[in-house]
């Protein structure tokens, strides 16, 4: 850079004359405004702000000015360049926005196109229903217990107070396992109920015992709309000091509220099961018609067959003989037990009309249930 020239007057320098600077500024502003796209703007930018642009060249002249002239010239050029850069940035933003808007429009797609790339799966509703019931009990402090499906007769019958000639034993149509000699005396059956799991749980340790046992059970029924030879039960048992029939009622009320909903009446019918005494069948007020269909042919109800009640399951206070067989002192402990048929609950809770749908494995039935029930 040249040394300061004391006699140098900016007005005398052509490039630093205010009207020239203003003209250069205005030309720049006009060029930016006229740029139709980002490419043109880029060219205008080079022309008006680049090293060879008039304002850059003028700026260089300032260095040669005498100190007293530098400030004024600097201010003049600075203001002009500020205005130019500002206009450039503004135009840049405008043009980018224009371009983006255009590109995004061009890139638009039909987002309603179906996309089945990843096929969906589903869990069987009986599985998820069992888990839901398990979770309700686990939240109450129960453990989940399980046992074998081919079970000893002693556990499936005898220990449950069903001796060999008990009439109730013929009520259950049992699959018998073949003995080594080909006879039916293997002492084993396909379990007809999940109750043997309760005996196993009781044999496993001292009370308190709170257990829920879901599982597959077997009876020799032919498959039809309301029967299947292989079906699922969930049973629960509580053995502790001072357990009463009232505790059974309270527990089932909680389960029903969680599973079906609140505000429904329960009906407790005395019944007979060898392993409980007293025994009861539980009916749930029909949650569809709430009894309005009873004796009212104009308003038939499919869910309860216009009976007003839905059979939920059987229950009772554990028969002391069962406690004895499981090695629990009935003078100290008492218990309750109950069992529910999962297929029936699924039919009622989810309007499934035909039990065969749960058995056949048609994906059209299972898929809508998804991962949770």
């Amino acid at each position: 850079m040249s040394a300061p020239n004391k006699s140098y007057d900016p007005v005398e320098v052509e490039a630093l004359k205010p009207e020239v600077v203003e003209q250069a500024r205005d030309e720049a502003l006009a060029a930016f405004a006229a740029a139709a796209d980002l490419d043109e703007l880029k060219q205008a930018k080079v022309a008006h702000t680049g090293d060879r642009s008039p304002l850059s060249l003028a700026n260089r002249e300032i260095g040669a000015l005498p100190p007293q002239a530098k400030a004024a010239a600097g201010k003049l050029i600075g203001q002009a360049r500020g205005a130019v850069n500002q206009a450039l940035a503004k135009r840049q933003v405008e043009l980018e926005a224009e371009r983006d808007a255009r590109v995004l429009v061009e890139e638009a797609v039909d987002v309603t196109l179906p996309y089945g790339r990843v096929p969906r799966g589903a869990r069987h509703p009986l599985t998820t229903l069992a888990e839901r019931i398990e979770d309700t009990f686990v939240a109450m402090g129960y453990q989940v217990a399980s046992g074998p499906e081919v079970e000893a007769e002693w556990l499936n019958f005898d220990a449950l107070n069903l001796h060999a000639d008990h009439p109730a034993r013929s009520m259950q149509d049992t699959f018998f396992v073949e003995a080594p000699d080909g006879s039916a005396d293997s002492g084993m059956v396909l379990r007809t109920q999940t109750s043997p799991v309760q005996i196993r749980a009781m044999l496993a340790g001292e009370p308190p015992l709170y257990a829920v046992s879901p599982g597959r059970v077997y009876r020799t029924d032919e498959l039809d709309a309301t029967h299947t030879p292989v079906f699922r039960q969930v049973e629960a048992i509580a053995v502790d000091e001072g357990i009463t029939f009232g505790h059974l009622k309270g527990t089932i009320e909680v389960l029903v509220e969680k599973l079906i909903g609140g505000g429904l009446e329960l009906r407790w019918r005395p019944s007979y099961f060898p392993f409980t005494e007293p025994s009861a069948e539980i009916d749930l007020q029909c949650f569809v018609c709430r009894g309005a269909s009873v004796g009212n042919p104009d308003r038939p109800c499919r869910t309860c067959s216009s009976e007003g009640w839905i059979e939920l399951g059987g229950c009772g206070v554990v028969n002391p003989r069962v406690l004895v067989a499981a090695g629990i002192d009935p003078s100290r402990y008492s218990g309750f037990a109950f069992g529910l048929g999962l297929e029936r609950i699924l039919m009622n809770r989810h309007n499934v009309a035909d039990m065969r749908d749960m058995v056949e494995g048609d994906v059209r039935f299972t898929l809508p249930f998804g991962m949770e029930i």
Partner: protein
Amino acid sequence: MRVPLSWLREYVDLPAGETGRDVAARLVRAGLEVETVEQLGTDVKGPLVVGEVLSIEELTGFKKPIRHCFVNVGAANGTGEPQEIVCGATNFQVGDKVVVILPGGVLPGPFPISARQTYGHTSAGMICSARELGMGDDHNGIIVLPPEYEPGTDAIELLQLVDEVLDIAVTPDRGYCLSMRGVAREAAAAYGLPLADPALLDVPPANSYGYLVKVADPVGCDRFVARTVTGVDPGAKSPIWLQRRLQKAGIRPVSLAVDITNYVMLEVGQPLHAYDRNRVDGPIQVRRAVEGEELTTLDGVKRKLSAEDLLICDNSGPIGLAGVMGGASTEILDPVVDAETGLATGTTDIIVEAAHFEPVAIARTAKRHKLPSEASKRFERGVDPEAARAAAQRAVDLLVLIAGGTAEAGVTDIAAPHPVRTIPIDADLPDRVAGAEYGRETVTRRLQEVGCTVVGTDVLEVTPPSWRPDLTDPYDLAEEVIRLEGYDNVPARMPVTPPGRGLSEAQRFHRRVGVALAGAGYVEINAYPFVGDASFDALGLEADDARRRTVKLVNPLNDAEPALRTTLLPGLLGALRRNVGRGNTDLALFETGTVFLPKAEPKVAPRLPVDRRPTEEQLAELNAALPDQPRRVAVALTGERLPSGWWGKGAPSGWADAVEAARVVAAAAGVELTVRQAQYAPWHPGRCAELLVGEEVVGHAGELHPRVVKALHLPERTSAMELDLDLLFEDGRRVSGPPVSAYPVATQDVALIVDAAVHAADVEAALREGAGELLESLRLFDVFTGEQAGAGKKSLAYTLRFRATDRTLTADEASAAREAAVAVAAERTGAVLRGA
């Protein structure tokens, strides 16, 4: 037990307006399972009247006999003129009293009746059969009434058509409710009304001149009452009221003697048997059968007897299966009516048996001979032994009343001594069982209502009634009190449970498997576990394949599938085929469940005692007899795994998906799965993967053998996987968080040429080992065979990513690691760097 409401009212004075439904509701709350309340006669509309047949003209020229009749219906038709009726039945004659429905009436159907022209005559009404009136399924022509009824009398009332019938399913503990007497007792308690007990009869005491009976087995038969009625009119018929009660209770009227025994059985619950005294040879004996003895029962079947069968015998041998069914040889004879005199000949002298047999003996005999009878059903569940005398008396009275016989003075009554059963019960036991406060007075009152005798204060000494053999311990009594007080009135409360431990690790794992597979697009199914030889043949299992050793059922639903599955595949592939058959073509199914593997030496599971806890040894023996029942998971795939669509081509499912499903499950288990080439049925010998954890084989996956696909009618290239979940599960697993390095990654690609037979898994394992700790990940991104790879060779291209935890790797370090990896691969698998 079918209970006509009109009959029930004979023993309990129920409120007049009480309907069948009302009574049913009360009985249900007391523990009787009322299945239905049938409305009888609501679909019959009169005029339905008694008619007297005045004339019969047989019409000819029709395909069947047709009668043109005139019937006197009294004033019922408004004119008093004979009613002209055309009738298709022929079991009546002039002078008979019949049941006529007149025009304007309606029969069940509904069939409105009007005068019409038929067979060339006017028919103004109809002569009715029992079935047409909805009285029963008897169709032996029209009803012929006893002669004493006046023409024109209303027959709806006469035939007691209008009634309600409660159908009660009686649980095994309530045998006494298989009688009107028992149900009436429950109704009386439910309404708080007195019971008119039909078994409270004046009965003459036993004496020595009744029919001679010897009971050789007082355990099997602890009561035997025999009474004799002589001079019975063999032609006597059951009166309408008796027939109607039987019909409503669901028992078909047969003949007077049989009807009376059935009637008394329904009334007091005591099964009776009637013998033709003149056909019984000498004294009656009760004894067990001798193996090989034979008896022809009433149903005409000749039966081989077993030494356990309890028999009624005379000098000729067996004459009845005690408590189950009588014999043909001493049966009451069908009357033979002399056409000229109208007099009937047949059985005139009858022995009535009212006995009490041991429930188990009867149950076994009925089961053994497949003869569940009304009698055996009652004996099995317990009959009131004290009702035998009254029941016999009731039958004698009815025979005398209806058939004009004479009751002989001899009364046989053999009774084994019965100890009085007294049960001590803490007066507060019902309170403790229910969790309610009844108090001693209520407990005592309720037990008395049941029929018990109760004495005592804090401890009650309770003697149950003879008809309640089911009441044997204090809890039985507590149940009676709680039941009668109403379960609805027991206050509900929650037990205080100890802190819960949640699901076990294994349970959480089983859930994860289902969630993972469903998340990977698989749909869960639940197949039946029943299989047969054909299932294994279709899978192409060798004759000595371990999976052909099965646990078998004695009584399978289907004889072709008598065994339990040893693999999940038959059921799963069955479901796959069913889906395909229904047009669901792109399928990925899974199932989890147990298989049943017989023990090497099958044993019998012992029958342990129930009066105490079995010992650990006994339980171990019991468990050791059970087959192994491991839990498995299986998948099956067909069709497109990834569908084609506007985004491009999809991908068919195949062996790799099946193997990947195993990896999904292994990931859920948190274990490393090793895959090895194998040959194992039912898989394609070149496309079968053996799945291992460590050195243990846990399952197989791949494409099914084409022969299997064909045999099972599956789509080509169907793939499947089966894994043992128990072997996969490892309790107490805990993942250590790995260090995550923030230094940059160094990526190196290698392309290796190996023999085509070399397994990618081996190459990968060698690369990993050689690459050492710096290797972060390794990915096979290309496989090809062909000219470029060379004959019998294949090219495997990998991306190796290296990274250190404490520094940025230099290019030299990364290259060295890569070379080390290649070196080990070369040594182990003969791999050569492509282009080298």
